[in-house]
């Protein structure tokens, strides 16, 4: 086929673009995924007993703030990495910022804690299950986001897959806050992050093959 024939073929018939844009498709994927993750959580885990009291504690909102801002930053990265030639300046910094802030708070609380309390602040009561549960809850969100991203055009598939995985992990962690009794910043800065990095690393690995076009 000659190039001119290809051009005629592409420009014949329905060549216009209709349907929702990237932003609303991702929003839909995140919304549906988060609902599925919440249902999963309610089926397998109890809500934290003191949820209503916890809402009055600043640390609860620090925790929510950390995972929610990480979700926002990775959504921003996902949107930019989905379009060829989009400006990626500052995107790594944006995603690292929430992590640096929680680490600073963690360092502060460890330094000020009684030495015998430090290991408890880091390990809490649930360090063995927390990363696994976050990774598990991220699964439906991960599938929904990847499905949308497969229809986009990431020119850096590994980074795009990582951002998609991190986004699903961060949303899953936000949902997990409904159950999780932990309140120590060192715990959150390490075990939560570890749980969110599981889908992110899987995403980077899968992105390298599944997101090519």
């Amino acid at each position, binding site marked *: 086929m000659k190039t*001119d024939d290809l051009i005629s073929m*592409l420009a*014949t018939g329905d060549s*216009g673009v209709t349907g929702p*844009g990237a932003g609303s498709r991702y929003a839909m994927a995140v919304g549906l995924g988060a609902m599925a993750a919440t249902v999963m959580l309610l089926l397998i885990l109890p809500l934290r007993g003191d949820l209503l009291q916890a809402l009055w504690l600043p640390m609860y909102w620090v925790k929510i703030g950390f995972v929610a801002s990480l979700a926002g930053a990775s959504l921003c990265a996902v949107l930019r990495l989905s379009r*060829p*030639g989009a400006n990626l300046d500052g995107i790594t910094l944006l995603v690292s910022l929430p992590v640096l802030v929680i680490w600073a708070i963690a360092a502060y609380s460890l330094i000020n804690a009684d030495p015998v309390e430090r290991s408890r602040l880091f390990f809490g009561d649930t360090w063995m299950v927390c990363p696994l549960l976050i990774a598990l809850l991220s699964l439906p969100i991960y599938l929904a986001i990847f499905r949308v991203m497969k229809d986009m055009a990431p020119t850096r598939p590994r980074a795009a897959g990582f951002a998609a995985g991190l986004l699903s992990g961060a949303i899953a962690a936000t949902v997990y806050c409904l159950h999780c009794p932990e309140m120590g910043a060192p715990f959150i800065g390490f075990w939560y992050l570890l749980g969110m990095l599981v889908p992110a690393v899987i995403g980077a690995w899968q992105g390298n093959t599944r997101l090519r076009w």
Partner: protein
Amino acid sequence: MQRTTREEGFRAKEDRLKTLLMRGLAGENVAYQAFLTELSAHLRAFLRRRLIHLPDEVEDLVQEALLAVHNQRHTYDPGQPLSAWVQAIARYKLIDLLRRRAVHETLNDPLDEAMEVFSSSDTEAAEARRDLNKLLADLPEQQRLPIVHTKLEGLSVKETADLTGMSESAIKVGVHRGLKALALKIRGFL
């Protein structure tokens, strides 16, 4: 002074191509065809300069990049420079080709300015070596027929639906999926 005029030239070209694309995305096929035709000349010059050692690959890659531009046209954000979008697609396809051929040539263009892709143009199309018609013939019927009828023979979606007995939405989906499958076939993945 000279530089200013050149930059103005790029800008004018960028604006004109962008207008054509936006009209095309709104469903004006004539504008879309003009966009693709002009774009193909820029892509050819851009890729020919970078495939000095593989001149036979140029036209195939031009076609592959055009198909990619078409398949990914919904990812263009009107707030973004068109040249940056086009260049990122062309570079992605170029690197993909080099990876596939396991040619580890260093892409030695650190000063790749975004406007460069529109800075030269080459309308001398060489013969493509890969025949897209053959790849098209290998697609499954529910993708091949919608493409052949609506895009090669120029029938409407309704006429194609009547002719093939498929539903109108199946025709639209078939065209969309078929062109994506064609891009995968080019990469040797289907």
